[in-house]
């Protein structure tokens, strides 16, 4: 049987990173084929190649559709070849009706005016064909997440595809809604439409797939028949990577508890469903608590909530140095001795068109105030000390931050947090997007801070980094604690299983300290 879609040795490089290092994979007509891999394994990049977002010529290797080599120069070319993508981020206009959304971009017109009867007729046809029961006249903003996802699928089906790509379609769905969506996928499969299915939830993957291809570090590792394998084998393939000696973490002796979280549940806003549920942990002086989990597990939200910048507490207590801690703003959190380095340094960390000195001292200005004015001598002295100890590579404090490399920008953000002299420091993905040398320097800073008696909470998507740097590890899974591990007890397989919510309850109980 000729594959409806196939790739041969795809290689895609970005400046400084190889996102895909040789991916070969085949999609047979009418099959559901799942792609599995850790964050950053190359799934999203592969989808972008298949859908024409990364145009032909920007990568190496071959794309084949029904056995013929094809070149996608744009998403239109991919659509013309019968490939339709349902994206993670919903791309619907909430103020428009289902029918309008389904026709968006090619609204039927008659003598220059929109032909409304044709709009609704088209919507009816598309929905009926997919056996999706939805009223096409209802506005999308009135629909739930699952129904919107179905509209997205209907929209993709409206283009009469031969291949449907579903990128994390169930990330925001409840169990019932997931079943409804899987039913639609099965229905389509019955009509000969092949599907590429991407999900972090292995239950779904095994429920729906004919075959599974595992990606790791940008390479296709193995393709397995779902019937012949099991979740553990898939996880083992997903991890399968040795820990390098990159991590200089020294063994520390944790001191007293600085921060304690008990039964914390948080919702984004009043009357919204809880995003974080029943989370408990402790942070001790002189230790690194690693927090891991898959994309969307709630790691950043947890840090931001404790820092006073996100969500509303539904339940639970937080204590900081023995007293209740319920700050309403980062300003308060910093004053109490908690600092945070955000994962998105350009958006939440830096003032790119301002000098390094401005950036470094911004969070510490209350401490630098003398008779209402900023004590410039003290400001420069403290900034210079951090500039030197973090070894920021720049001409001086007056250099604009925007001109620095990613690693040096990150040092400035860390320096801004350190100047406040925090007792507890939250680091959210502190090594993302910086080169190996700069990573090592960040790790050394973490070690030094621990020796100075600070407590570090390190959020990372990279399991080796968590294993290498943490004294204890907390894995989050869909807003809950998926498992906690002591240094030395944790393995990549164990962490990943906890992140996927597959750790047996008994095993979890045994490692909670």
């Amino acid at each position, binding site marked *: 049987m000729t594959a409806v879609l196939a790739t041969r040795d795809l290689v895609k490089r970005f400046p400084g990173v190889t996102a895909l290092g040789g991916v070969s994979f085949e999609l047979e007509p009418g099959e559901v084929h799942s792609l599995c891999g850790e964050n950053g394994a190359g799934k999203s990049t592969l989808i972008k190649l298949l859908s024409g977002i990364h145009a032909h010529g920007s990568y190496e290797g071959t794309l084949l559709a029904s056995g013929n080599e094809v070149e996608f120069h744009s998403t239109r070319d991919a659509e013309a070849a019968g490939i339709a993508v349902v994206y993670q981020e919903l791309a619907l206009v909430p103020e428009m009706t289902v029918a309008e959304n389904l026709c968006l971009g090619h609204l039927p017109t008659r003598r220059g005016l929109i032909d409304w009867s044709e709009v609704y007729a088209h919507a009816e046809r598309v929905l009926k064909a997919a056996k999706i029961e939805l009223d096409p006249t209802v506005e999308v903003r009135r629909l739930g997440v699952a129904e919107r996802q179905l509209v997205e699928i209907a929209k993709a089906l409206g283009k009469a595809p031969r291949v449907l790509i579903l990128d994390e379609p169930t990330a925001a769905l409840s169990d019932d809604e997931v079943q409804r969506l899987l039913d639609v996928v099965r229905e389509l499969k019955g009509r000969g439409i092949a599907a590429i299915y991407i999900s972090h939830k292995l239950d779904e993957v095994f429920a729906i797939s004919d075959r599974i291809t595992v990606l790791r570090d940008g390479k296709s590792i193995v393709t397995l028949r779902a019937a012949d394998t099991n979740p553990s084998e898939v996880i083992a393939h997903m991890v399968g990577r040795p820990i390098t000696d990159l991590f200089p973490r020294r063994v520390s002796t944790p001191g007293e508890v600085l921060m304690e979280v008990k039964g914390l549940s948080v919702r984004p806003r009043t009357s919204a469903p809880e995003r974080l549920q029943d989370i408990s942990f402790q942070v001790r002086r002189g230790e690194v608590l690693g927090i891991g989990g898959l994309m969307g597990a709630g790691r950043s939200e947890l840090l931001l909530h404790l820092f006073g*910048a996100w969500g509303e507490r539904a339940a639970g207590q937080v204590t900081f140095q023995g007293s209740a801690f319920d700050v309403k703003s980062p300003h308060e959190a910093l004053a109490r001795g908690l600092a945070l380095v955000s994962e998105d340094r350009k958006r939440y960390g830096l003032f790119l068109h301002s000098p390094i000195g*401005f950036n470094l001292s911004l969070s510490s200005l209350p401490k630098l105030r003398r008779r209402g*004015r*900023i004590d410039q001598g003290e400001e420069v002295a403290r900034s210079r000390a951090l500039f030197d100890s973090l070894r920021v590579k720049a001409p001086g404090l007056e250099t604009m931050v925007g001109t620095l490399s990613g690693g040096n920008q990150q040092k400035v953000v860390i320096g801004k947090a350190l100047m406040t002299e925090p007792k507890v420091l939250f680091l959210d993905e502190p090594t993302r997007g910086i080169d190996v040398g700069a990573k090592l320097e960040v790790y050394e800073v973490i070690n030094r801070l621990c020796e100075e008696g600070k407590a570090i909470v390190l959020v990372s998507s990279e399991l080796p980094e968590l294993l290498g740097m943490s004294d204890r590890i907390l894995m989050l899974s869909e807003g809950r604690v998926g498992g906690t591990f002591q240094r030395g007890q944790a393995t990549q397989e164990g962490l990943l299983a906890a992140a996927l919510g597959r750790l047996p309850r008994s095993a979890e109980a045994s490692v909670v300290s």
Partner: protein
Amino acid sequence: MRQSLKPLLRDYSMLLALAAIWAFFGIEHPVFLSSRNLSLLLIELSITASLALGMLLVLLPAQIDLSAGSGVGLCGAIAAVLVYTHGVPAPLALLAGTGVAVLVWSAMGALIVRQRIPAFIITLGGLLVFKGLHWLTIKGQTVPVTEGGRVNAFSLLTTFYLPPALGYVLAGFVVAALALSQARARARRQSFGFRVPEPSHAFLTWFVSAQLIFLLVIVANQYRGVPLPALILGALALSVHVLTAHTPFGRYLYAIGSNEEAALISGVPIQRTVIAAFAVMGFVVALTGFMQTAYAGASTSTVGSLMELDAVAACVIGGTSLRGGRGSVAGVLFGALIMASLLNGMTLMAVTPEIKFIARGVVLALAVWVDVKLNAE
């Protein structure tokens, strides 16, 4: 602190524009350069620049105040009615007007940051409401700032001139203070290991500034002396400079305008800072209102009309970004000088109000276009 070639280029292009404006009016209407007119221009500049300095504090965190002009009219009207109709002593009336303005502007600031209503809308509403209140206050009449031509603190605002001798003493004092503060700043920067300008360059900057200050006093003294509004502007400019360049509050204004999300995560108290900026703006609006009303001699229905746009134009011409995060006191003073010169020259040449409106509009649009252009690059 923020130096690159582009702002420098802009400074020079604006300097050329100013020279062209002065040359044009000077040739077309020689009275423009008379000491009497230059003295009046100094008062008008002081009024325009004061309001623009307040506007700077609001523009830095990427907000705007469209109600400033109406507020100018209202504050002047409140003080005038208290003095003229109710016989309240002038200092008390001015204090009352200031208090009302600070409260009302703080409230607008609170609405903007707490209820998340855009400043554009809140202050546009303010523009209309204050205009209505202004007209209600004076009941469609002309309300003089003083009773029976007597002198009081209100009328003195724009009729008091520093005696010539005192003017020279003050000029000498300012020039000396300038030299001292420049030398101290230089020594500090050197001790921090920062780049400092060549000694000859620093001296030249000081020397030219000193010359200009003395020239200003000489010209003013040829008429009646340095007018009080110029002294008020001097004090206000110094305060706003210290506020923006040397206090946490000022840093926060720049941070909020540059990247509000990062400012929040960095612990900047955004709400408190923006409300405080509006409170200061209220104070400045009242001060400007008193000066403008005193300058007109009475509160009439047109006092303050459209002054907010002159203030915004002065800021933008002086290099303040409407997107926030960029702007300085020196730039604003310069922009105000261009706006005041244009308005004064047009009045001298008896340009009709219709054409004046059009010219102001074109200048405002031109200034914002340049701002957008320089931002895009």
